[in-house]
């Protein structure tokens, strides 16, 4: 088995910083971010793509970090929740909207929701079909599971983020 193809050197950009690392090829991107880079804002719930807590942005699109291998991120650009803050730690507009609407309780699912909503705002800015009504937002966020809030406040926050985000730079 150990014939040189079980570890690999990759170069990727995480939150704007280019890194070259040697990793085991069987490491998932989520485990790489959390355990190797210490970026623990990306949470792991179900670890098979259902709960959405591990959602990150890869080359501009939301993706699950638990259902891809870190080695596959070679040459790609990954953004986690840690990468959304301003230079002095200011909250991202999506985070502000969620804070203003009390869109979380325990906070475990929140990073995934932040990234999913960020993705919706970016799609809207890019002029692609994006959710407008509460029903559409609900449908779009069905890929993220929250066990505390009952979702109403999260939909409120997403609605505000979409309304504010379309005119703002992120």
């Amino acid at each position, binding site marked *: *088995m150990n*014939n040189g*193809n*079980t570890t*690999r050197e990759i170069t990727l950009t995480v939150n704007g910083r280019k890194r070259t690392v040697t990793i*085991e*090829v*069987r*490491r*998932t991107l989520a*485990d790489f971010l959390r355990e190797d880079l210490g970026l623990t804002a990306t949470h792991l719930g179900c*670890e*098979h*793509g259902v709960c*959405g807590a591990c*959602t990150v942005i*890869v080359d501009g*699109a*939301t*993706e*699950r970090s*638990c*259902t*891809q*291998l870190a*080695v*596959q991120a070679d040459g790609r650009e990954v953004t986690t929740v840690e990468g959304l803050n301003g230079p002095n730690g200011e909250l991202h507009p999506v985070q502000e909207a969620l804070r203003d609407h009390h869109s979380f309780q325990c906070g475990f699912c929140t990073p995934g929701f932040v990234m*999913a909503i960020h*993705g919706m705002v970016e799609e809207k800015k890019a002029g*692609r*079909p994006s959710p407008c009504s509460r029903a559409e937002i609900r*449908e*779009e966020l*069905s*890929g*993220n599971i929250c066990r505390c809030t009952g979702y109403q406040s999260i939909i409120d926050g997403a609605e505000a983020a979409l309304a504010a985000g379309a005119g703002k730079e992120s």
Partner: protein
Amino acid sequence: MKPAAFEYLSPTSIEEAVQALTDPDDGDTKVLAGGQSLVPLLSLRLAQPARIVDINRIPGLGEITESGGVLTIGTLVRQRSAEHSDVVRRACPLMAEALPHIGHTAIRNRGTVGGSIAHADPAAELPTVAACLDAELVARGPRGERVIPAAEFFTGFFTTALAEDEILTAVRIRSAAPGTGAAYEEVSRRHGDFAMAGVAAVVRLDGDVVAEARIAISGVDLVPVRAGKAEAALVGRVVDEPTLVAAAEAGVADLHPSADLHGSAPYRKHLAGVLIRKAVRTAAQRARESR
């Protein structure tokens, strides 16, 4: 470390990829495309292949083209790209309507059209679309290229006619003819969950009479099922409620779905009938509107 150890190869040509599948010839190699099914299987150690061949670095497998009345979707086309493609919407409205049922946006941003078909989950949308439209599945192996009709492609539960040294490279579908309407209906417990039953329907009308009907059902057998008897019950008839009821009855007569904790066998059978009526009704309506 969640997945068991494996050897990872990321070929940059289809020839190199086929070589990686051929050698060693131990059948213990998996092809990795979008990974939305395979990576969870690795992490859960339900799959423990000795070798992974990641085809994502192979150029040319991610194109959507239409020529001579045939839509060709490269195996690596992301489901989300197909969903947003004007070509797919026009040439294959059935697939465009089925795609949003798959998982969620973040899954479809990574999941591929070819990967879903090659994975052959009988509850999944794209295998059902392929069966409904008699898609041609293009495969490359050490003996060159071959084209497998959808009717021969899905051979069993998560099992296809692809040999262990073959890679699905593209899906070919005849572009939707004028006067044709399509609809995809499914019932799942939550959006993005696997369907308890789903129906893909295409209806071509000649005047008010059905000239051609295609119906495929997901989630009720080991493979997506073509409802030939329901199709026969529609051809030559006007799509009214008695005809829909007769077609639905004919379509589910031979089904023997299995039960799980989400639904009994009779419930799934009932569901398939309801969805046949609903999908055919909508498809016929769209066929009328398309003229």
